[in-house]
């Protein structure tokens, strides 16, 4: 984790605006985007700020396909660059994201998720977890995926996203949702200049006499060469594991562990408080990096005495990774709402109480259920 400096005085801001303002403070050089609810405030905020930032390219593109390919061009030319969208728009970007990952270009993409599939709804959801963490486009590649759960993190993760993207030369994604994008909260914004940029020698800025030409491509006609490119990428993804981040709340004595990210994690926090008030030992595991996923951390809690309850705003996506981590050592349950519905703490309490009851009646073998 980088040590970003923050303003002393908090501001009251929408998540989308905090993300946009943080991007300028992080030294954004080029932004390309296309309107879509619930993330349009980012483009609106940046275009409004544009006169104060004449050296920053802020451009409304004709589509998300154009946006992501403009990002590719700008990143290749060495700029710190970003695009943002919401679910349908992110789907449209997938070919471009695959090219960016394959060409090893750093950039930041924010997905302010809404309910799907299809045109879906403009209400918040977490249905794009698979798309974000498993690749999304064609071929074997990954993004760094950061999941904020507060307006403060919407701002902070812009810095973290750019830092990781540039360090590992790969695209980073902030995977958030319409609720975090739209809600207002106190935020201490990160300060200007706290994210220095390293010189790169691979950018296309004009071939000087003194060096070979730089070209950015993801095309390698010989399979032997293409496999080497893949091996190199996989190697990078292995190194990336050292960046795993996860928040653990009241996990030490917990009999029931809630696993949730982003907005669901906030709701789980509330449910945990209520459950503890009722004498049920509940803890929360909040993955912050969804890729790399905190498999080892989750695995370290897996034993026959504990139960896991994964809560998501989808039909059950991250729960598959939780099951992989737990590897059969504990029972893993799932509670999800879909299509823009947000689970309430009360709904989660009902699930927790049912699990606690199971643990009580089944005794020690409960974990094997």
């Amino acid at each position, binding site marked *: 984790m980088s040590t970003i400096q923050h303003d002393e005085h908090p501001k009251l801001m929408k998540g989308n605006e905090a993300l946009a303002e943080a991007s300028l403070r992080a030294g954004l050089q080029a932004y390309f985007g296309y309107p879509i609810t619930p993330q349009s405030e980012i483009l609106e905020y940046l275009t409004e700020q544009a006169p104060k930032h004449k050296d920053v390219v802020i*451009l409304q593109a004709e589509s998300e396909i*154009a946006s992501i390919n403009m990002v*590719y061009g700008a990143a290749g030319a060495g700029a710190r660059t970003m695009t943002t969208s919401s679910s349908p728009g992110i789907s449209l970007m997938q070919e471009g994201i695959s090219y960016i990952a394959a060409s090893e270009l750093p950039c930041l993409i924010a997905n302010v998720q809404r309910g799907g599939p299809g045109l879906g709804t403009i209400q918040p959801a977490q249905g794009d977890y698979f798309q974000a963490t498993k690749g999304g486009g064609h071929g074997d590649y990954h993004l760094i995926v950061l999941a904020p759960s507060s307006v403060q993190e919407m701002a902070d993760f812009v810095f973290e996203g750019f830092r990781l993207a540039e360090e590992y030369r790969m695209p980073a994604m902030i995977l958030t949702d319409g609720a975090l994008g739209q809600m207002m909260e106190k935020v201490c914004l990160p300060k200007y200049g706290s994210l220095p940029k390293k010189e790169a020698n691979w950018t*296309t800025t004009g*071939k000087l006499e003194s060096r070979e*030409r730089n070209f*950015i491509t993801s*095309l390698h006609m010989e399979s032997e060469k293409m496999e080497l490119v893949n091996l190199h990428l996989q190697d990078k993804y292995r190194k990336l594991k050292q960046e795993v981040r996860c928040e653990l709340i009241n996990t030490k004595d917990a009999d029931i562990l809630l696993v949730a990210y982003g907005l669901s994690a906030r709701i789980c926090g509330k449910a945990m408080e209520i459950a503890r008030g009722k004498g049920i030992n509940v803890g929360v595991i909040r993955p912050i990096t969804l890729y790399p996923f905190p498999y080892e951390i989750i695995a370290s809690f897996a034993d026959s005495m504990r139960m896991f309850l994964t809560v998501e705003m989808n039909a059950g996506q991250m729960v598959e990774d939780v099951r992989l981590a737990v590897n059969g050592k504990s029972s893993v349950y799932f509670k999800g709402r879909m299509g823009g519905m947000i689970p309430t703490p009360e709904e989660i309490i009902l699930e927790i109480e049912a699990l606690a009851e199971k643990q009580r009646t089944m005794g020690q073998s409960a974990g094997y259920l």
Partner: protein
Amino acid sequence: MSTTVNETMEIVYEKPKTLTESPTHYCPGCGHGVVHRVLMEVIDEMGIGEQTVGIAPVGCSVFAYNYMNVDMQGAAHGRASAVATGVRRVLPDKYVFSYQGDGDLAAIGTGETIHTVNRGENILMVFVNNGIYGMTGGQMAPTSLCGMVTSTTPYGRDASFIGHPLKITEMIAQLPGAYYVARHAVHTPAAVRKLKKAFKASFEFQKEKKGTCFIEVVTNCPSGWKKTPLEANEWMEKNMFPYYPLGDIKVPAAMK
């Protein structure tokens, strides 16, 4: 008769230094190589190689960066002008060109093409129109002529079913962002000289940030058209040129 090498012989013609030593992968008679060369000659003569970034498309010229000894980026199919926009916007004082085929620029990338020109991006768009999808093996392109036999129009292009060959260059010329629009060819030395002038003017306009310069090059595809290079050029002159007439389409007052 004996030949002696005259050490003081004057060099009258040589390979531009912005062309690499890579042997060509283009088919015999293909126009791509000539267009590459003309473009690089102009860059050399203007001395702008160190300030130029090129965007290679997906299509036969996908390997343009193997020949062009300038910094380059390969773009996804159809997206060259969006990539060029990204590069030019962050490097506003450099020269940027995109190099695209008809499938790339006028089918899958039509949206990007129109909006790039409409914004008047200060780039040179080189549009190589060979009336067919060369790279993927000779399928119908948006610019394939009516009646033209391709691997996906085996009975000839039927406009009533699949639409008419698209004159995208004329469409582009309508846009205020287009500063200089012309159609050229590379089938004769005279045609090559004209194209060279057009490229040179385009880079000069780019320096002055005048807007988009869009140069179409009507050329052949002997392999895709299933013709010898000579037959292909004859067919091109007889069929392509009447539908895609060569010459200036939109010229700034300064050039008139």
